[in-house]
């Protein structure tokens, strides 16, 4: 395989933010016909590269070359005109516009928006990809997965010669991932240069032609096409990223068996439909101490509502009991005190207050409680000490505990939430997509934490759209569909097939 000349090249790119060196003399080349995978831990600086290539920010030093000529990418518009299309890590849709209208943004301002034509084109492209996006839906009413699909479609509709996908598979189903992978291959075949960012090494080796690895802002290695070879490559990448050929405990360890008893009992939970979210109807299940109950299902089938109803964020019908104690009348605080913890998947909007320092976000659910507050007065030293402690324990990459949490990379925000919720005293923990956006080492560490929790006798409800994750961790798996539990299956050899059937509405 001969290497073609790059369309786009980064030469010695450096970018600093207050307290962080996000990119340190990075060299990177995107070639036509190649899928270039960018790997790296959370906060390694991947999205920073994306931001520079899409014109959102400019490098402090170094240069970007297009077809060998140095360019300054002044703005997103400029990037688009250079043929660089981007799907960003965080949603870039206008919630109050429909999907079609969102995709129309950018046409000359005096034009009449061609809504119908766009809808038709969208239908075509989506169908070819096995995606089901309704062009007339308001973007804000879509699930995160659907939003991600819409954004991928936007990049495709626009066309161009460079396509950047920043963790675009994180919300897709296994089938969706496979289809996106196939699409990337087809497009590369047509001469497009693709930059693909993911945390899943499997995706990297199966879709990628070339792999670059970042660590702490520096590029620590590149694997050219001729050296990409399945498992072997994975090991090589792990070594580059973590300095070891394995990252934490292997994910295959079977969970310890649960203990007898019913720690969490849910009886007839129900909730009316709201804002495009489905109603919950008659949800009942129970979880034993030490048991991990997985909740599978396509995003938007009531998982979020179930989690919020369990946590007490929404008043629901039915009963929730922990160790036999009825918590139905309790709010969030009462349930938390009773040992019920909920880790939301909405990190920035709900899980944290972006403008507040890491330190305060770590005690966000303890406001007013000792030892952080005494007689209602804040004890900064205690809060900060606690924060430094948690930051160390969970390896949160942050310039300091006073840094606003919103400035951290997505994965590190997730670690802040984990660090906050997994404090002593938990009896039941509800996880919602706990490893979404986490790098491999952190994902594995989180999985290990979940197992450890179970081993301590804590009941775990694990909501995830990642079937592999569920199969690796759960004792039993419930499948949600349309706001109901379609069925609960034991995690055995048959599980994968039965879950698939339940998801599409066929009895297992």
């Amino acid at each position: 395989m001969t290497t073609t000349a790059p369309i786009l090249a980064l030469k010695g790119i450096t970018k600093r933010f207050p307290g962080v060196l996000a990119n340190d003399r990075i060299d990177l080349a995107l070639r036509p016909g190649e899928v270039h995978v960018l790997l790296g831990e959370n906060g390694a600086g991947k999205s920073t590269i994306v931001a520079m290539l899409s014109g959102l920010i400019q490098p402090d030093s170094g240069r970007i070359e297009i077809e060998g000529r140095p360019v300054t990418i002044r703005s997103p518009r400029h990037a688009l005109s250079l043929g660089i299309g981007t799907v960003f890590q965080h949603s870039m849709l206008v919630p109050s516009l429909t999907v079609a209208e969102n995709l129309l943004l950018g046409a000359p301002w005096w034009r009449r928006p061609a809504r119908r034509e766009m809808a038709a084109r969208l239908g075509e492209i989506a169908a070819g990809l096995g995606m089901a996006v309704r062009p007339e839906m308001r973007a804000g009413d879509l699930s995160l997965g659907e939003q991600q699909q819409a954004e991928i479609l936007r990049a495709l509709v626009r066309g161009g010669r460079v396509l950047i996908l920043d963790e675009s598979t994180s919300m897709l189903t296994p089938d969706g991932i496979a289809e996106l992978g196939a699409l990337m291959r087809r497009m590369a075949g047509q001469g497009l240069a693709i930059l693909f960012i993911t945390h899943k090494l499997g995706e990297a080796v199966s879709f990628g032609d070339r792999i670059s690895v970042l660590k702490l802002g520096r590029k620590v290695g590149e694997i050219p096409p001729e050296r990409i070879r399945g498992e072997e490559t994975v090991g090589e990448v792990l070594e580059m990223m973590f300095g070891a050929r394995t990252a934490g405990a292997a994910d295959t360890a079977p969970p310890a068996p649960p203990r007898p008893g019913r720690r969490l009992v849910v009886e007839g939970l129900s909730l009316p439909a709201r804002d495009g979210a489905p109603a919950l109807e008659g949800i009942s299940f129970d979880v034993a101490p030490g048991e991990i109950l997985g909740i599978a299902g396509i995003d938007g089938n009531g998982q979020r509502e179930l989690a919020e109803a369990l946590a007490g964020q929404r008043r629901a019908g039915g009963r929730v009991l922990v160790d036999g104690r009825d918590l139905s009348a309790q709010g969030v605080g009462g349930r938390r005190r009773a040992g019920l913890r909920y880790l939301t998947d909405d990190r920035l909007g709900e899980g944290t207050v972006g403008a507040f320092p890491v330190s305060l976000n770590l005690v966000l659910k303890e406001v007013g409680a000792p030892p952080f507050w005494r007689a209602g007065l804040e004890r900064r030293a205690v809060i900060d000490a606690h924060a430094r402690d948690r930051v160390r324990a969970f390896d949160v990459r942050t310039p300091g505990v006073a840094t606003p949490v919103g400035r951290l990379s997505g994965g590190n925000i997730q670690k802040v939430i984990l660090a906050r919720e997994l404090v002593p005293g938990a009896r039941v923990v509800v996880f919602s997509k706990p490893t979404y956006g986490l790098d491999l080492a952190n994902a594995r560490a989180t999985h290990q934490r979940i197992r450890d929790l179970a081993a301590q006798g804590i009941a775990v409800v694990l909501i995830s759209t990642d079937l592999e994750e569920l199969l690796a961790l759960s004792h039993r798996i419930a499948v949600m569909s349309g706001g109901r539990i379609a069925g609960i299956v034991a995690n055995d050899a048959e599980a994968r097939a039965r879950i698939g059937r339940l998801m599409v509405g066929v009895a297992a």
Partner: protein
Amino acid sequence: MNTDARADGAGATGQGAVAAAALGALRAGLMAAVPILLALLLAGLLLMAFGKDPLAYYGYVVRRGLLSPSGLEQTLTRMAPLLLIAAGLIVAFRAGIWNLGIDGQFMLGALAAAASGPALSGVIPGWAVLTVAAGLGALAAMAWSVLPALLRAFQGVNEIITTLMMSFLGLSLANALVKLVFRDPATTVPQTRTLPVDERLPRLFETTVSSGLVIGLVAVVAVHLMMTRTAFGLRLRIVGAGPRAAVHAGLDLPWLTVAVFALSAALAGLAGAVDVLGVYGNIRADWNPGFGLVVIPVVFLARLNGFAAIGFVFLFSMLSIGGESAARRLGVPTVFTLVLVAIVLIVLAVAEWLDQRARARRA
């Protein structure tokens, strides 16, 4: 203008901290002085365009607003209601609530105090008159904020519109009540009965400065400490910075929202009451000082920091007291003070931006 925070946040010990604090103070002083001088220069050019001597004008402003003892006393007295309003706005804005109904709340507070004060005078002891009247002022304003509070807390109705509407209604209601219900029968002018001078809030020491100033200062500092150092204040700030995070963290969003409205309005009402009990003694129909329009930008310039707000309120009071005097002596229409204040506001905002950018660069 944020020296306090930087000074206490420095965390260093010993001489280094002292030196840093001194440097910080110096910087803040410069930060405030340079733009103000620039604003004065701009306004001065305007004066020259109108054929007036800017140096003479500023000489009068400073002499009256700052240097002459009685002028300074007036400046300090005028600060009282502004400080209380600033305190009320800081609570609301930090909690993400746009209470723009300040003027109506202020008027109803003033009316409650003006209606009850003179009526109670002689019935109960003087200190009790003042306490009850001030309390009623705060309560009246609080009551006026209940509807916007409930609408916002339980229906999600945007409070900008509701508070503005309630403000217009409150102003009209206060007027109607002065004319129809609380009118002093002894005078042809529609105004309430007057609280005698010696029964008003005591003056400070031997001056004419009303002790309302102390109430205002205490309120601003208390609010600042509450918002930055207490659990309750933090809850309010969480509501302001991330309402969804607040729900997730189990905070009682509706109740906290109502509490914010109540507290903010109470302070605005107290401002009205203190102004009546400390200075005016009564209120007239059709009176509306419209303090909201100056205090709102001042509070934002202060970045919702109580200590900085005190500084800005002082500056504003000085300009308005000194400006009135200077305008008279120089034969410039009094509205020139408005222009001066406007230029100062805008130039300070620009300077603040430049400062932040410079700081970001250095970091």
